[in-house]
């Protein structure tokens, strides 16, 4: 359970205003506005094709934006190429995890430090390995030999190596056994407690509403409902559509 009183006062980190994303001549995202505060976990919930992944891809620069504004800590992001958005503090763990199978676990983690010139890379590596001991055991293994759960751990670890202020997580639970899903979400909460804000896209609405502070419900590219996660959990519309009508 979240105790809303213990949360820091809201300071906007990511602000999305009137975002339109189109590809293949389809408007995947149609005028969506929302924000993520410093230290917050915000979740976007919706069915397949509701536009959740497109929103994350537009924020990280994988997809071009047709209209709208996206700012991080007040600075415009849309004119910035994707690889420089990483330097601004955005880390996107994409759908399907995007592990490089022809790189080892260690190389996958190191690659994410491409732009870093500070001396703390080794320390951060040890931190990731402490967070995911399984990755430490497999550090010399090729990425394509990892199980789905290990790949998800590696994808999150990679995001941490870039020292993100904002993590964009796309379906971290997809295809994982329930026990592993719990483990991943525990780590996500820990990362959040250490200061990173998280924008979480999930089909597993139960889990997402459990860890998130706030939530937005997306339907066919538009926001249908929003509010504190603790309230949305009991909202009749959400119960009926996403929580199995319980």
């Amino acid at each position, binding site marked *: 359970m979240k105790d809303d009183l213990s949360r820091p006062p809201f300071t906007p980190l990511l602000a999305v205003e009137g975002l339109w994303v189109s590809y293949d001549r389809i408007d995947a995202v149609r005028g969506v506005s929302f924000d993520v505060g410093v230290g917050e976990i915000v979740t976007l919930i919706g069915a397949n094709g509701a536009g959740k992944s497109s929103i994350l891809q537009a924020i990280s620069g994988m997809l071009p934006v047709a209209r709208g504004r996206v700012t991080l800590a007040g600075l415009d992001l849309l004119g910035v*190429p994707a690889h420089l958005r990483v330097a601004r503090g955005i880390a996107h763990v994409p759908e399907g995890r995007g592990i490089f199978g*022809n790189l080892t676990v260690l190389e996958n983690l190191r690659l994410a*430090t*491409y732009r870093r010139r500070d001396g703390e890379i080794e320390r951060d590596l040890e931190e990731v390995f402490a967070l995911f001991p399984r990755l430490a055991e497999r550090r010399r293994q090729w990425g394509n030999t990892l199980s789905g759960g290990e790949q998800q751990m590696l994808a999150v670890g990679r995001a941490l190596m870039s020292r993100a202020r904002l993590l964009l997580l796309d379906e971290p639970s997809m295809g994982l056994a329930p026990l592993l899903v719990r483990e991943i979400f525990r780590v996500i909460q820990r990362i959040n407690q250490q200061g990173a804000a998280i924008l979480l896209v999930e089909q597993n609405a139960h889990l997402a509403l459990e860890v998130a502070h706030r939530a937005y419900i997306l339907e066919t590219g538009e926001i249908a409902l929003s509010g504190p996660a603790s309230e949305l959990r009991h909202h009749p519309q959400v119960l009926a559509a996403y929580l199995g009508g319980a």
Partner: protein
Amino acid sequence: MPAIHLWCKIMFQLLAQNVLNALQLGSVYALIALGYTMVYGILTMINFAHGDIFMVGTYLSLAGAVFLLGLPLKLPLVVVFLGAMTFSMLLTALLGVSIERLAYRPLRSAPRVSAVITALGVGLFLENITLGILGPQPRHFPDLIPLTRWEVAGLTFTPLQVLIIVMAAVLMILLDLLVRRTLLGMAMRAISYNRPIVPLMGVPVDHVISLTFAIGSAIAAAGGLLYGLAYPVLDPLMGVRIGWWAFIAAVVGGIGNIRGAMLGGFILGAVEVFTPLVLPSSTYRDFVAFSLLLILLIFKPTGILGRPVFERV
């Protein structure tokens, strides 16, 4: 008995001598094959202009060497060699980067066949602009390496042969280390595996692709200098045949695979050297090389060391 003994000795010497020659030629093919394989690995595109980039690199080596020899400084030959190599590698790298930037990058999201046709066009452009500027008459490469011969156990070595093999080996080892051990190498491999994800790691993809062209072209220029020293007659169309051979080398070894390019280079060097020993004349060498390619492609389409095209997410 002594007759058989003598015969064995002669045969062994003949074999060893030809292996040495194959190694020398194979080194040059391998250096050029690396450029094909690097570009294919990162863009899944065959840079058919690469043979002509090698040709330009050879001419630039010649220009650098002639310029340095013409200075009234009586420079030591080592300095001329290194100077010509640096000059040629830098300018050829610049040429490769410019070709990618101007001709290939605008077509990156176009159908792959467009890029291939463009590459063929760039090759013709380089051949004809060189022909236009320098004319068709062959040029002679000056001797930068002493022409002494060493005899060891009945084998004849020249300093040039040793230089070619050692320099090619050093360049290949450096490239192998670069690809396997550095962040740049990791970025290159990552791009070949799943390019859309790479920017999310903070890696500037275009920059890495430019560097790939720079490195591949510079290595071809080094190969051009060594080739010019060993086979000192240059003409503007020399890149066509050598380019094809290096391309076959890359495919035979497994295109996209760096060690495969090296292996393929040596195999093609052996084909060229041994063909006239087995068949009536060296005019059969292209026939043998292309037959080898066709047969190999039937039985192992990915080449000797190649893996099937990387799975894409």
